[in-house]
Every structure is written in structure tokens, then in C-alpha cells.
């Protein structure tokens, strides 16, 4: 079991590291998908079937598409291998600042989290139980997430829509 966990961890971290190192943005995006699939494999290893499949459906199915579309539609250069400009001091400093604050947040969350001793047998959480928990106990969180996503969606549409009058010659 531990060997499987190690394998999953190596695959997950390896593909994430490779995604950082690749110069080709599409390769990075696809490697990121591999990393997300690794996370799903970890959930499967931990016995959380439902979360694992949801992870694949949402990340490998939907978020990957958003990333790929964003990469393809925003890139102006026709070259596939986008030259990355040499790092400036401000860029390096901001990268370090972001990484440090992220590490601090995650580190404090891990440090303060209480890990109850695992029970001898895994609790058989059925889909129905998960649904009831989500809707009853964590209903507020679910609603807030929904509202945030809707706001993001509307914001994206507003930014994307250009108000320029269309040339009647271009009309389909």
C-alpha cells in the first residue's frame, strides 16, 4: 500500500515539476492534467471513490479545457514555443513573495489541522450520505462556492464581450 502511495506521489510531483520546466505551454498544460489525475489516483488510494471521479470529471474534463482554450486563444505569437523573457528582479521577487505566502498559508493549515486516528475499518460513505452531508451541513459553503463561480462567469463574459459596433459587412 505504501509503495502504491509512493508511486502516486512520484507521478504527481514529477508531472507537476515537469510542467514547470517545459518551455512549451501546451505540454505544461497537459502535464498539469496528468498531475491532477495523480491527485485523483491518490483519492482512489485513500478509498474516496466519489471524490476521485469528481476530481477527474472536473479537472481532467473541464478545467483542463479552460486552461487549453485560454492558452490557445490568448497567445498572440504564431510560434508554438513562446520565448519566455529573461527574469527580471521584480518578477523573481514577486514569484518568491507569492510562493512564500502560499507556503505559509498551506503550512499553517497543515500544522494546525488535527488528524484523528484512523478507525480500523474505512467508513462506508455512500453517495447518498455524501449528498446529505453536502446539502445539510455544508449547504452554506456550497451556496457560497456557487455564487463565487457565477460571479466569475459573469465577470468573464463582461470582460470578453466587446462593445464595439460590428461592421455590417462582417455580419454573418
Amino acid at each position, binding site marked *: 500500500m505504501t509503495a502504491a502511495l509512493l508511486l502516486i506521489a512520484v507521478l504527481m510531483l514529477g508531472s507537476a515539476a515537469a510542467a514547470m520546466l517545459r518551455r512549451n505551454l501546451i505540454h505544461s498544460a497537459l502535464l498539469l492534467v496528468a498531475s491532477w489525475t495523480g491527485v485523483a489516483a491518490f483519492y482512489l488510494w485513500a478509498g474516496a471513490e*466519489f471524490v476521485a*471521479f469528481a476530481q*477527474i*470529471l472536473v479537472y481532467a*474534463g*473541464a478545467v483542463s479545457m479552460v486552461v487549453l*482554450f485560454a492558452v*490557445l486563444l490568448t497567445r498572440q505569437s504564431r510560434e508554438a514555443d513562446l520565448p519566455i523573457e529573461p527574469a527580471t528582479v521584480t518578477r523573481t521577487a514577486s514569484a518568491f513573495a507569492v510562493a512564500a505566502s502560499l507556503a505559509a498559508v498551506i503550512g499553517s493549515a497543515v500544522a494546525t489541522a488535527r488528524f484523528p486516528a484512523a478507525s480500523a475499518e474505512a467508513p462506508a460513505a455512500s*453517495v447518498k450520505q455524501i449528498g446529505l452531508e453536502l446539502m445539510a451541513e455544508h449547504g452554506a459553503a456550497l451556496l457560497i462556492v456557487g455564487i463565487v463561480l457565477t460571479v466569475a462567469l459573469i465577470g468573464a463574459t463582461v470582460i470578453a464581450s466587446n462593445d464595439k459596433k460590428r461592421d455590417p459587412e462582417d455580419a454573418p
Partner: protein
Amino acid sequence: MSAAADSFLERAPLELRDWAVQLLPAPLQWISHHLITIVAVLAVFGLFFAFTTVAERKLLGRLQNRLGPNRAGLPKFSILPWHIRHKLFGLSQPFADAVKALTKEDIVPAAADKVLHFLAPVVVVGFSLMTFAVLPFGRNLIPVELDAALLYFFAAGSASELAIFMAGWSSRNKYSLLAAMRALAQLISYELPLILSVVPVVLVASTLSTSAIVQAQGAWTFGVLPHWFVFTPWGFAGFIIFLISALAESNRSPFDLPEAESELVAGHLTEYSGFKYALFFMAEYFGLTALSGLGVTVFLGGWQAPCELLYWVPSYLWFMGKLILMIMLFIWVRGTLLRLRIDQLTRLSWQFLVPLALLNVGNAAFWALTAQWSGPLQLVRWAVSAAIVIVPFLVIGRSLSAGYAPRTYRYAP
């Protein structure tokens, strides 16, 4: 009923597997148990794919007033003194096609991304085969029993989008890339109504497990009217939405824009040849078969017999029969309807199917809440549920087609 459930034919496939497993030494039994299941699924659905292509070509031929393939017979084996001259009605055509595809030259464009170009067909076939794992083919025949089977099915199916993107992008061909983007737009648009059309069933059956969903449809009124979900107002609407979305998800006519050969060369498959092309072709049919199987499982009662008298027929025969009917329906649709334009395609999904599917979820919630209504209230329940289906269909349909229909034809005097 229980006698029929344990009849010899019902248990035969499992008994055969167990017999084969116990022949092997003990350490190999666990793995061979699963391998036999995998090989059985591959063999059955590989052959099913082969004969689907013949059926499709023959049926399309008949629909277009031609004969279709009827020449491929048996080759002359040199060890045999005689030659079977019968043409076998052209049924050996797929095997000839397979040999042709395997022996064709595999051309990889010089500018292509070699790794992704190779990986795309592998990923698409692999994941489309994985979807078969959770379909209950018979009363006791389900490769993997999962609590979240439906979620697994859609998760495995979503990988085909990535494969199409990989194929289109790695070919380094502008037609491939353009077509891949169009294909992705189509797949994303239709994934939503596809999943939403299945949600009502999950709501009413209150489970995501495919075998439990089939169990929930296993009863008859007066012994002849099966309690399949398609025979309820919400189930019927869900089934129709599912059919349309399944057609679009498997890139079949009238939604075959991704490889509209007259407009986009061959879409994301332009730079593929030989066996890699055949793999994409295969994955498309596997996807279609798996989606049809899901439709049968979720709406058409799975392996349940249509009436109580026919209960003795083995359950897997019912499943395969319904599956074949679904495939025939899809071939018929391909021979009948014309291809849509891309704007019509996306409009159909977002403005018509998604709202109807969302309303249908509410409809199923109403159905689940009124489960204990009986007597005349039952009629009210059916009427309200049918109204939730029909009224929005008419209203949205009328408003979308306003100004387009009825079409008038004017002829020169």
C-alpha cells in the same frame, strides 16, 4: 422468478469463468479472475464493433438504394484442397478492413509533436474502453461494481476531449487544430445536457450505482407494462435529450461536424493514417456503444425483460438486444438527417436542450416527492409531470423557430 434468476443459462458465463480460474495455481487466481473479465469485454465488444461497421455500411447502403459491402468472402487457404466460394453476405468485410488498416503506411508529419501524436489514439481508445467497466450486461454480469458508477462513466468519457485536443494540436496542421477546437466546443456543449439528462434517474432511483438503477426498473404492471424509466414523462424527455446528446458526443451524423470531410478535410484526423486512424474510428464506435449501453441501462431497464412471461430469457440477451436496437436507431438517424451548422449545433444545446434538461430535473424531483400519491392523485401526478415536459418544449421550440418555419417554397412560374 427466483428459479429463472438462477437458471443455468443465467449463471453460465460466471460458471465458465470460475471453472477456468480454478484450473490455475492459487496465486494467479486473483489476477486471472479480472483478466478473464477484461478479455471477455474486449472480445465481445471488439466483435460487436466489427459487425456494427458492417451493419452500418449495409443499412446505409439499403437506405441509399445500394447494396453495401457483399463481396468479402473467405480467402483460399493453401492447405485446404477446396475453396469455400460463398461470399458470406460480405460479413467478413471488417476483417479485411482490419488487415488493410494494419498494413497501411503510418505517416507522421515531419513537424508533428511525435509523442502527443502517438498518445492521442492510445488515450482515446483506452478511455472509451474503460467506460464499459460499469455497465451491467446481465443480472450477474457487471465487470466492476461501483457505488459511484455513473460518475465513473462520465469521468472516463471526459478524457476523449483531451485526446481530440492532443490529436488536433500535435498534428501541426491548421485544419486539424481548427477542427479540434470545433470538436471541443461541440463536446463541451453537449456534455452538459448529457449529464443533466441522467440526473433525474439518479434523483428518482436515489443511487449512482448502475446495477441498482437497473434493479429499480424491475417490475411490471399487470405483468406486461415494464416499469422502465422511459415510460414516465420525465424519463421519456430525459431519454430523448440523452439520445440527442449521445449522438453529438460520439460525433455522429447529424452532429458529425468535427470530421465534416467536405468542410474541414477530416477534422482532427487529417494527419492520421493507417492503424492510428482505425483506432480513432474504433474509439468512436466504442464510445457510441458505451453510451447506448448507458442509455439502455438508465432508461430502458437494462437487462430486465419487457414482460413477465419472457423472464426466462437470459438477462444478457435482453441487454444485447436493446443495445443492438439502439445502434440500429443511430444508423437510421445517420441515414436520414442532414448535418447541422456549427451555430445551429451550439444553439440547439444551450438554448433548447439545457433548459429542458434543467426543467426535467425539477420534474423528477416532483415525481420523487409525490411517490406515495395513489388513486386519482396518480392521474394528477402524471398530468402535471407531462405538462412540465410538454409546455416548455412547445414554448421554447416555438420561440426558437419563430421566423424560420414554416418554410415556403416558391417556384418559377
